[in-house]
């Protein structure tokens, strides 16, 4: 996309904020530009089938993959990335080295003796569980990465309430990204717009032009302090 071109083709929803965000994606996280622009367009194509799931899916993926692109770090592991192979390995070893039960006297067994091969598989499983628990949430990772991408001096303080805002918004889209989403959770069009715009503003507040935000705040200060 040429730098000066409006990705939203001068549509009514092509706001300054959206153009700046799209431009930022293009500069800093190019693979996410098209999904973002697509999601915005879809938001206004009310008769597009399945648009709610599709939009939520895109936003969920932006939260998920943006930190990897910005920081170059490996993305968070998901349980489905780790558990199947570990469980398969455990099952194989269980068959190969079955545990010994203390049922010699015919009474119901109370203890099982595990061969070391089997024990190692259990240890790995427990370890994987621990590392998954220790991971930052996707919302927090995204907040930290965006914060760091915003041209800030090292050591600038990122408040918890900002992290929480990212977590909450991410959870909204994650919960609604899949087809199995309960009907009660499927948002109305108004709710979808509200959350989508919230996601955009929160992103934009961290990476958008400083003086634009300052000007908005000056307007509020002038009114409220007066």
């Amino acid at each position, binding site marked *: 996309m040429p730098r000066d071109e409006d990705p939203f083709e001068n549509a009514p929803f092509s706001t300054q904020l959206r153009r700046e965000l799209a431009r930022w994606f293009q500069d800093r996280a190019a693979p996410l530009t098209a999904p973002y622009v697509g999601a915005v367009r879809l938001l206004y194509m009310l008769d597009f089938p399945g648009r709610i799931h599709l939009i939520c899916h895109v936003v969920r993926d932006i939260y998920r993959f943006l930190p990897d692109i910005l920081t170059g770090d490996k993305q968070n592991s998901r349980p489905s990335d780790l558990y199947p192979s570990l469980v398969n390995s455990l099952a194989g070893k269980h068959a190969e080295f079955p545990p010994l039960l203390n049922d010699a006297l015919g009474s119901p067994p109370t203890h099982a003796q595990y061969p070391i091969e089997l024990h190692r598989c259990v240890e790995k499983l427990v370890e994987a569980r621990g590392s998954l628990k220790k991971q930052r949430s996707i919302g927090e990772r995204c907040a930290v990465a965006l914060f760091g991408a915003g041209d800030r001096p090292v050591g600038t303080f990122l408040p918890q*309430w900002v992290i929480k805002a990212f977590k909450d918004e991410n959870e909204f889209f994650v919960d609604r990204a899949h087809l199995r989403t309960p009907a009660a959770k499927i948002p109305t069009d108004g709710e979808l717009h509200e959350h989508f715009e919230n996601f955009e503003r929160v992103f934009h*507040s961290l990476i958008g032009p400083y*003086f634009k935000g300052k000007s908005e*705040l000056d307007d509020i200060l002038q009114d*409220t302090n*007066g």
Partner: protein
Amino acid sequence: MTSFKTPTAEQIAVAVQRMHSPEHAAYFLARLNNPNWIGPLCNAGVFGSPPEAVVEVVEGEERRRFGPWPASQYLARMAKLAPEDVCRTFAEVTTNNPAVIGDMIDAALAMPSAIAARLVPKLNAAIQSDTAPWRFRDLSELCARLASEGQSAAALSLADSLFTLELQPGEEEPRGRDAHWYIEGLTAVIPSLLSINPLSFVRKVFIWLSAAIRAKRTSDPKSGDDHSVAWRPAIEEHPQNRTHDFAGQLVGCLRLACEKAISDAGVSLADMLELLDRNRFVVFNRMRLHLINLFANQNPELARRTMIDRLLFEDYRFKHELAMLFGSRFQMLAAAEKDVFFGWIDRGPDMSDFDEYFKASSGNDATDEDRRGRREYWQFERLHWIRNHLEAERKKFYDEMFARHGEPQLADLTFRTGPFRFGHESPICVAELEKLSFDAVLQLIAAWRPDKRSFLGPDLEGLAAEFGKYVAAHAEEFAASAESMQECPPIFVRQFIERMTDATASGKQIDLQPILNLCRWIVEQPCDSGNEHGAPSGLLEDTNWQWTRESIARLVQTICAATAASDSRPQYPLDPFRTQLSALLKELVRDPPHSSISYSPAEIDPRTRDFVDLGINSARGKALQALFAYVRWIGNHDGALGDHVQSFPGGFEVIPEVREMLEWQLAQENRSVEALAVIGLHIGLLHWLDKGWLQANASRLFDLEQIEQDPGNASGWAAWNAFVSWTNPHIEFYKMFRREFRYAVGQAPNVVGEDGRHERPMDALGEHLLILYARGQLTLDDDEQLLRRFLTTAAPDIRSHAMTFVGRSLEVDVNAPEEVICRYADLWDWYWPEIGHQNAPTGRTHELFGNWFVCERFPDKWSLERLRDFVEVVPSPEPDDRIIARLERIASVDIGCSVTILDRMVRGDTEGWHVHAWHSHAEAILALALRAEPLIREQAIRLIDYLGRRGYTDFGALL
């Protein structure tokens, strides 16, 4: 009452959205003056998570790193307007950040006491964890206000946190709190807290004072002996009380509390004394006496009983308080009681130890006269207590004693400290000496000895200084009598010679012959003699003739340097002085080499230190300085030192005595860093004197390779370091010492410079090489690439210094020819890509190219491009203010390059204040960039945006 608008939902939404960015949050909260935002911001979670202080352990000491929190600053500002909301919000904040606690304290001080009291638990926790120790004064003020406005429980709880002491034995000041603020705070809260429950509060002060006394090394809790007469001579405020003793100051607080409790809060003297009786420490008994005296009207009987308590009278520890009691309450005693007191005085002091004490202190047996004197003085001191009540014979006795001795200094004190004396005191002033003949003065000074018993008083150093003034005033006259000084102790002889030296230096007509005869006599004395007049009594008194010998070296140097006023020719002729001076020098150059500056050779790499300071502060070094002055003196006589004379005619063949003295210094058994440093300092003179000799002896003089065999004895480096540090570079030196230059360059990778020393010989070596390079006398590849090797292999700090030196020197040498500039430009273009950028992130590199840039000798375009490459690696170049100033001047040459440089420097300002120093220059560069082509303009906009985030919001006006 001002009414504030309620923020709209839309305003709240926009502001909270924007405040996700910390820069916007800081901006908004710093300017928000409407308390109606507290609720909405609280709901958004803005006050939920203050930045934590980071606790670091640096060199075993715990330090906290923390920053301000705009949210708590906003709350503190709103405390007066919405105290309930602010209090509720702060009560939910948990933090270890001292800045946030500071805001909480400010808020508490601004809100009504009834509301502030609710913050006390939070503040107590902060005090106990030492979170904001420097706010002690404000917390004390809050404590006093809470107490005076009826918040008793909160006030007492805060007082407990503030003033309870947990001291380890030997720890005489409160930990984590400033003793001054502690005492000032406690003094401030006493009146208010006494109003709540006086006895209970006084008891607390007792406990705090007891803790401070128990922690003192000198206190004994079992016996109660606390040595308080030393650290608190008087219970009341008194000039002799020590202002720096914490427990002593705390006694003052207790006294204030006790006095106010009785006088203002209705506590009876009896109740207070009962409280005091519970503590064993002596100072509490002294406090008891003080209160009995002060409130004697409440219990006159007790005051009288106390005055005629013989045990108290005899106990020196109660002397001051008892003296005060007698002084102000003596008239309360009945006639019979007064007789009891006078009876004790008439009986006199216990004299059982007097004879023994007298013998020990004076060395003599006590006579009846001595005993009577002691007894009368003791009586005088006791009568001094009641001096305003004396009558008849006793008054007559007192007045006589007063006339004889003046006011007794220890009548009511056990110790007294007075002003210290600086300098020395003479037993006789110069005006008195002037009345005597020179011979009489010599007899006086030779016989006078100070009184050993007197710590202060006249001393020999004082007398010598006064004698010096006397000699100085009559130098021409006394010079003739110089030889009669032989009967005097060395300290006076030294004074005499030094004053004669001063007179010679100032051009007075001095008859040198008698003085040189005296000098000759001195150097013939064994060096360790001269103490026949008695052992030295002061630190600055000569123990032998050594210091006088050093004065002689200075005299010789002065004689040699003296010139006639008319034509700058030497004032003193070679005949007869040359023989006499060389004879003196021959002895003096063999004096001990040790410098008066201490250093340990084992701890110093001889390649890294310039030893000249040691040399010129050693006896031998001073003599060698005189020797070189002697060489110049002879040269001046022969006209050989003229501007165009390349060498001394005849060299050492004409002055063999100098060669002999120098070669003695080079012999293995005589070598010393001090002497060799002084010789190295004069390589230029030696080169002029006899270059053949210098060439032939260079390897013996410098002997740099010795570092490999025995670094502790590699004294030749002292000569080398002095040479490279103090001699101007010249190709002749380079040619003569090529071998040494090569060897020293070979050592440059292996040395680590001494931190904090200005003279770094390896740096000076680099300067030599680069100046030769600039003159075109040494290329990068000459002599097996000597310079190239130096600039690529020398320790990073050393090679960085060499390159930095170029910029500095060009700033001074404004007339450096164009070819020099071209050579240096070529050097940079080789150095930076080849090696410079690699070691730039470490070491002394901030000034590396900065000085090249600001010297303004290199072409603008070239300078900009090289600076851009440099700041890419070193984003905080120095001198940054001058760099940016020049950048503004030449920005139009390449505005894109200039904005890139500015961008790097702004981002490289990790300390956050440098931009302030070059604000206007940066503004001008950015203004120019905004008018440039789109890409440059965009870069400028991004930089302005960044500056805004850093708090430089006025750059926004450019957009």
